[in-house]
């Protein structure tokens, strides 16, 4: 049985600025991602504008920032950052707004972002840095076939407690094997299928 979803990913643009600022001010964003709670709103705004300005349509971008969108509005963001064209690698970060957080939406769109990284950008490796207490995130990556490569002991503090940080790595051939195994379930959620659905929607609405 294949999975069906109305969510899709698209390139973030300037119109997403307010949404992104709202998300970055979310406590979870700072708790689970690399946020520094002491940052001022101005700093946050500047950082996001920096993200968006890097997010050009360049064939060799230094980062790609996706909005996870839906007919009901944006759900979250996925970024492929620190793209190294020499090493054909990047870092993956994912944020889904609290009201839309579920494994299915996250999983489907992470798969699409990975498909974009490996099959469109021709990357060889995707790295993800995840705090040990963020179990749903590292479980998802393990499900997709990523390997926990580093365990950085007592590497960050949250609420006065030291936590480990995990570094996951996923290589292209590992992702290909996973996709091959799961074709039956994922055929309706591939990037190609998503683009076809968007085209159909645009044709109908015009």
């Amino acid at each position, binding site marked *: 049985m294949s999975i069906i979803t109305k969510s899709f990913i698209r390139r973030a643009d300037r119109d997403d600025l307010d949404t992104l600022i709202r998300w970055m001010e979310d406590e979870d964003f700072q708790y689970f991602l690399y946020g520094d709670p002491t940052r001022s709103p101005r700093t946050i705004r500047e950082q996001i504008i920096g993200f968006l300005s890097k997010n050009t349509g360049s064939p060799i971008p230094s980062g790609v920032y996706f909005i996870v969108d839906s007919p009901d509005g944006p759900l979250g963001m996925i970024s492929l950052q620190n*793209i190294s064209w020499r*090493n054909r*690698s990047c870092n993956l970060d994912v944020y889904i707004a609290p009201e839309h957080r579920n494994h299915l939406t996250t999983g489907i769109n992470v798969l699409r972002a990975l498909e974009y990284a490996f099959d469109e950008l021709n990357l060889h*490796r995707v790295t993800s840095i995840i705090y040990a207490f963020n179990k749903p995130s590292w479980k998802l990556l393990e499900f997709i076939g990523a390997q926990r490569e580093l365990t950085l*002991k007592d590497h960050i503090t949250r609420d*006065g407690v030291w936590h480990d940080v995990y*570094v996951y*790595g996923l290589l292209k051939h590992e992702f290909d094997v996973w996709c091959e195994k799961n074709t039956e379930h994922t055929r309706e959620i591939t990037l190609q299928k998503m683009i076809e659905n968007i085209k159909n929607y645009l044709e109908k609405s015009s």
Partner: protein
Amino acid sequence: MIKKKYAIIRNAERFDAKELLRFYLHKPAFACLLDTKREPLLPNLSELEELLQHKDTAQSFYVVENKAGDIRGFIVLKGINPEVLFGEIMLLFDNEIYEKENALIEEALEFIETRAFVQLHLRKLMTTCLEEEQYLRPFLQNHSYQCEGCMREVLFTCGKWHNLETWAKFNVVSVNLPV
């Protein structure tokens, strides 16, 4: 200038740039000289001279000389994160020095650890190591560094993929202290 039994350790100066450039030109690259994207940097001599001229850099780059005054390598303490109290060390020594003048590197490491753990009260020191750095790995292991894992196929150089290990050592004094 700090005089040890085998080593003389001093802050790097712009005149040391030529020696430092030698390490940047080394193939395959030294793991600790890779940037945040794990890409090898290719500075030229004038860029390194400028780097070492900078006061902050000069204070974190140390030249390690033997008693005859010959430069044997560099040791660097950088990337200090004051929030979580960790720093990165760079050990830049040729394999030959590990083989023939190991005691000199030990003194340099002892110096940098004292600086990090005692003077700066850091909790953790980290460094990276490529599989080709066959002398660095056992050296770290012999000095109580623990391997925190290995990133696979993270660097492409010399026509092939390379894995990158991360090694760390905790300050035994501060490891049990609360945050």
